[in-house]
């Protein structure tokens, strides 16, 4: 059955800069915003944009991700034709097989999957970003401009521009040049990792790229430069909403803290653009007599007996009497004992924090503390407290 546009979501990233948060899960499965995993954002965007066929390319630690996606019913992607398909690397009879060698290789190896739907366009997404975006608007722009490829861009502050892949464009939005993290930026339009290609053109480039032994099989490094070199029509589509790369512990923490701002840039309480996720099916949260809660996002199943100030608390978290949590993110099912102090920290899912532990550094510029390996970190912080 023909589909006008099929989405391919690159979800194989290891996310090493998220340290132990991705020790056993792929980066797109990392928790965000009190309830979600990162991948909920692109999947919900697809559903809300009317894109009902999504291939999810997995590679690194796929167990939790595969299990989480299931048949896609949580995002309304359990469809008779299309829906969500998890596409791990596989072995082919003649070409052999092995891991996906790059983002372009992952799509190349799934040409057969895409051909099934005979799409006119392919939407390539990454599973690393937090944003709400209507891909159908971008597709309309792509079709109206007659582009071979359209790359979604966002204006970033000039002083930070050199951290991004930048698009130099002419007045009509045609991309003339692509600079990957240049020292002296000529533009402040950063690529958001959201591409729409004409499928017939992309397919040709993917095949050429696969035959090129010197290629690293990467969209940013190989496919986009090759298309620009051939003067293919490539358009920049400017997005002006909230968009954040959550690739590091600090940026993940920041993005969570952004949700607590008085004027929200990323409105999650939006009936017209729901972010869907798997429901943990827990009873409502309980805020006790002794609790004090200010400036917080708290999810179902929590039992709060302590003080929560400017923090994001995921489902099933228990915080006992006398504990103070400030400027922190507490991931699902973590159990916080009595008289614990947590400042500027991310506590990983399922952590058990013993009574009296002191975690994190409250001074505003300090690094974010990550507690993921319960035993070692806890023992250490407990020791520090005794020494004090």
């Amino acid at each position, binding site marked *: 059955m023909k589909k006008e546009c099929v989405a391919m979501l690159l979800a194989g990233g290891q996310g090493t800069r998220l340290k132990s948060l991705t020790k056993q899960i792929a980066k797109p499965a990392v928790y965000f*915003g*009190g*309830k979600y995993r990162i991948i909920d954002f692109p999947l919900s965007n697809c559903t809300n944009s009317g894109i009902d066929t999504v291939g999810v390319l997995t590679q690194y630690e796929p167990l939790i991700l595969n299990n989480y996606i299931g048949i896609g*019913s949580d995002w309304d992607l359990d469809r008779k034709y299309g829906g969500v398909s998890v596409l791990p690397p596989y072995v082919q009879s003649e070409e052999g097989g092995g891991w996906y060698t790059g983002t372009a290789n992952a799509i190349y190896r799934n040409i057969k999957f895409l051909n099934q739907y005979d799409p006119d366009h392919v939407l390539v997404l990454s599973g690393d970003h937090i944003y709400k975006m209507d891909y159908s608007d971008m597709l309309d722009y792509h079709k109206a401009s007659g582009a071979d490829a359209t790359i979604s861009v966002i204006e970033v502050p000039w002083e930070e521009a050199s951290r991004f892949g930048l698009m130099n464009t002419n007045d009509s939005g045609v991309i003339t040049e692509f600079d990957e993290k240049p020292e002296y930026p000529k533009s402040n339009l950063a690529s958001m990792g959201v591409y729409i290609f004409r499928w017939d053109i992309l397919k040709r480039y993917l095949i050429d790229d696969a035959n090129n032994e010197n290629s690293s099989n990467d969209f940013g490094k190989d496919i986009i430069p090759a298309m620009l070199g051939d003067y293919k029509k490539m358009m920049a589509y400017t997005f002006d909403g909230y968009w954040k790369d959550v690739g590091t512990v600090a940026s993940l923490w920041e993005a969570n803290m952004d949700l607590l701002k*008085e004027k929200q840039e990323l409105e*999650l*309480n939006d009936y017209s653009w*729901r*972010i*869907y*996720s798997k*429901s943990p*099916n*827990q*009873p*409502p*949260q*309980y*805020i*006790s*007599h002794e*609790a004090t*809660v*200010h*400036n*917080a*996002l*708290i*999810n*179902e199943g929590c*039992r709060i007996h302590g003080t*929560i100030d400017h923090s*994001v*608390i*995921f489902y099933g978290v228990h915080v006992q009497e006398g504990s103070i949590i400030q400027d922190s993110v507490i991931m699902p099912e973590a159990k916080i004992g009595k008289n614990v102090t947590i400042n500027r920290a991310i506590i990983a899912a399922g952590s058990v924090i013993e009574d009296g532990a002191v975690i994190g550094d409250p001074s505003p510029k300090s690094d974010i503390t990550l507690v993921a390996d319960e035993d070692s970190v806890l023992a250490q912080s407990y020791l520090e407290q005794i020494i004090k």
Partner: protein
Amino acid sequence: MDRIAGIINLDHEQDVLDELTYFRCSAAVPFAGRYRMIDFTISNMSNSRIESIAVFARRKYRSLMDHLEQGKAWDLDRKRGGLFILPPDWNDPTDISKGDLQHFHNNIDFITRTLADYVVVSGTQNICNINFREVLEEHKASGADVTVVYKKVEELYPEHKRAHKLTIDESGRVTDIHNDQRSNNVYMDMYILEKNYLYGMIEDCIAHGCSHFFLDGIKARLPQIHMHAYEYEGAHALINSVESYYRHSASLLNGANHDDLFKEEAPIFTKVKNEPPTKYSQDSNVTNTLVANGCVIDGQVEDSILFRGVKVAKGAVIKNSIIMQRCEIDSNAVLENVILDKDCRISNSRTLIGVPEKPYVVAKRVSM
């Protein structure tokens, strides 16, 4: 493993919750911040691996059907069995059945077709967390024809007045069912029996012009029928009045009561609304309150229950109240001992105060 089918019989559940049952049957009344009363019955059945469940509905079932959908939330969207909501569309010209026997007669296919050997029949006004597998084991061990579930309540409250009570002998056999106000063996409107036995009883009841399956069919024949009593020992709330609804809601603020009802190993499921986590502002002041997802709280809330998507503006004060889904409380409004049904809006500086014994109930979609 024995197969069990479930029947949720709503025929005898009167709409006694005043404004809360103006537009819905009591099974569909919201409870405990995010559930409907029937969620407890269905989740208990689903957790007991009862995979084929019929709901006998007669009136005000629109909200119930909307809530239950195909049973997906309880994992009951099954190829074999699943959830059947059976409203009264009966066109059998030979039908002579009366009362709730009409449901049994006209939906007899549900009973004859099910692969189950046993059937659990339950209402929805007894909120509890029960494992019907344990009831079945005791039923089989006792060799009884029917096993009824009861709760030995510590203290008798007005809601128990209308409930039936059991007299039980030392062997656990029920010798009498009555309304004795002194008895604390409260019958929980749940029983289990063999499918074939149920089928025979239905035929017999209809032939004899009975109109209440349990009272005319089972209770009336008590000396001949071997009826065993299963004692349920967990959390229990009989809700058949606004007063009992309000008191049992408040009792969930007690951690021990709450944990008895919501168990990790036997969760209560409900329709998922995809609400984000609740947001508390800098000015919020919330204590001793159950809060569901999707709320935005700027005001003060004490000793209350907030359902999903409630907005409490700055300066608003809510005490000892139950605020249902998507209500909006504007700034400086004061609510005390109030139950607001869904989608209500209380405008600036309005004050609504009920008394603890009789909360002030506001019907659905009222703005004031």
